[in-house]
């Protein structure tokens, strides 16, 4: 059995390939190979690599996997849905999403409007803080999916753009 997947680890997309059995896995991350052995350690995972044994706590919340290992915390998101709002790296998406939960304070654009890179699209508020969600590039506004006063969830699509 084998798994090939793009996983965005702490904001950086990594190409992951896992082959073999749990007690003898061959892994390639961005083409760099290494061996892993996994087992159960109470509620945690026992991870053996290069002769070192570590405990990892792994929790999955929908498309996000949180991993605590050796004092480090990593937030991993399944490949294609990794990007949110203006805060992620990677390719620009025509679907502009909310980087955080909160309330829509203002919608600055209307359908059909031309916007330039950086133009404000929607103003959000959470915990008394305002955040402006801007356009990732020159585009035409294809759809506006929220209105002023609406409560929104992180990742919710706010505006759909058509890039020039």
């Amino acid at each position, binding site marked *: 059995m084998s*798994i090939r997947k793009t996983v965005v680890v702490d904001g950086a997309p990594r190409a992951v390939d896992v082959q073999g059995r749990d007690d003898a896995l061959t892994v390639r991350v961005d083409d760099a190979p290494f061996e892993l052995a996994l087992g159960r350690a109470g509620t945690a995972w026992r991870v053996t690599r290069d002769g070192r044994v570590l405990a990892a706590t*792994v929790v999955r919340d929908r498309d996000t996997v949180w*991993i605590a290992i050796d004092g480090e915390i*990593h937030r991993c998101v399944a490949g294609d849905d990794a990007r949110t709002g203006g805060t992620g790296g990677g390719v620009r998406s025509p679907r502009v999403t909310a980087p955080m939960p909160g309330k829509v304070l203002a919608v600055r654009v209307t359908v059909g409007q031309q916007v330039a890179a950086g133009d404000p699209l929607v103003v959000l508020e*959470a*915990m008394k803080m305002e955040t402006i969600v801007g356009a990732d590039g020159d585009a035409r506004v294809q759809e506006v999916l929220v209105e002023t006063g609406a409560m929104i969830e992180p990742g919710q699509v706010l505006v759909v753009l058509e890039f020039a």
Partner: protein
Amino acid sequence: MPPVRKVLIANRGEIAVRILRTCRAMGIGSVAVYSDADADAPHVRLADEAVPIGPAPARESYLVVDKLIAAAAATGADAVHPGYGFLAENARFAAAVNEAGLTFIGPPPQAIATMGDKVAARALMEQAGVPVVPATPVLPAEPAAFAEAAATLGFPVVIKAAAGGGGKGMRIVRRVEELPEAVAGAAREAAAAFGDGRIYLERYLERPRHVEVQVFADTHGTVVHLGERECSIQRRHQKIVEESPSPAVDAALRAAMTDAGIRAAAAVDYVGAGTIEFLLDEQGRFYFLEMNTRLQVEHPVTEWITGLDLVREQILVAGGAPLSCEHVTPRGHAMECRIYSEDPAHGFLPATGTVHVLAEPSGAWVRFDSGIAAGTRVGVDYDPLLAKLSTFGATREEARTRMLAALRETVLLGVVTNRDYLQAVVAHPAFAAGATHTQFLDAHFAGWTPPAGRHADTAAALAALALAGPAARRDDGGADAGSAVPTPWEALGAWRPGGGAR
């Protein structure tokens, strides 16, 4: 004043938990209040009784005076502890509590009101001989008037709008030649922003430190200080790391600052725990900033170095007892880090989610105050402070390295926090050297991104396995379809030891 027998805590989160613990330790009754969003919160479970006070938004629950007083009456509480934030510095709330025949665990309403009025407070502090930042009254908007004043105050100076706020109409001026343009610009900007073009001049402090004095007063006229705290590490004027003593304060300066703190408290007939905040400039001169008429978020560092339980002292003083902490000699060094649900790599945006895993740090001289538990939903309704981690050591370096170890042990999965950022701050050579000031984060941490970590590629592999695991099966219509979190073992999915694929 009768001794307090049962306390209603008009707050939530870590401070409610912290106050409840002291009530329990003192053997007195406790009443929690909670909004709809907090029905399963730790402070509700810890209290003897709990009263629902309405919907999640604070203005419909934690900020509604009548509901809080009704809850106290319904449960037979005889005192109210406001914590910090919410109604803690609301003089009308303190007065309403007193009028209802209850004891307000805090200062008299008049002291809250006086210190809440910044102009009145400044005038009163000048009268009491507490240094304030040298400033002029409103001046005519002419370069000559400002040049004369600047010569007296000494450069650099800052022009400020009388109606001011938010930095509008402000101009920092370092040389006399810059004054004409700055005066005209500031007056114009002030008029545009506030409809009031009046401006004045104040001495500008370069990279000041934020140093505050903890005071405590009883109803018998005794006022004492419990040393200082340095809280210079701030982002957007919000403290994230605090410590005591301050690395910048020697015995002579401490004597002068604590003396000023006591004079400030005495000037408003203060009762209970209070904090006088000062700015300390690079020349070792200090200036009154404001007084916080309540328990501070960072009070644990004072508890570490004094051995006191400040909430216990508050409750005893509110019951009319004389101060028990009149002769305290602080020892050692304590540090606190505030753990917030926010993303320092992305403009400190507030983060939300569910706390799936919480591993609290422990060990000698480590304290973790939190208002969350596994399963807690972190939403947008309240302050993003999740927990406070504090450590103690015989020396600053011992407390600092202990903090680094404890931060590493602090594991919270499910919500983005500033933990890695705090680790980077506490590990920074300038912080280790005690070279802190209020612009420290702008100077050293602009554009900060989290370190990649040594195990990012292992994490990538584990994540790929977890994502390939049983959640997909559940989404296909299992009994738990849509359930977000498999147990760790389920998340391991097909990769059972010795089992191969299922």
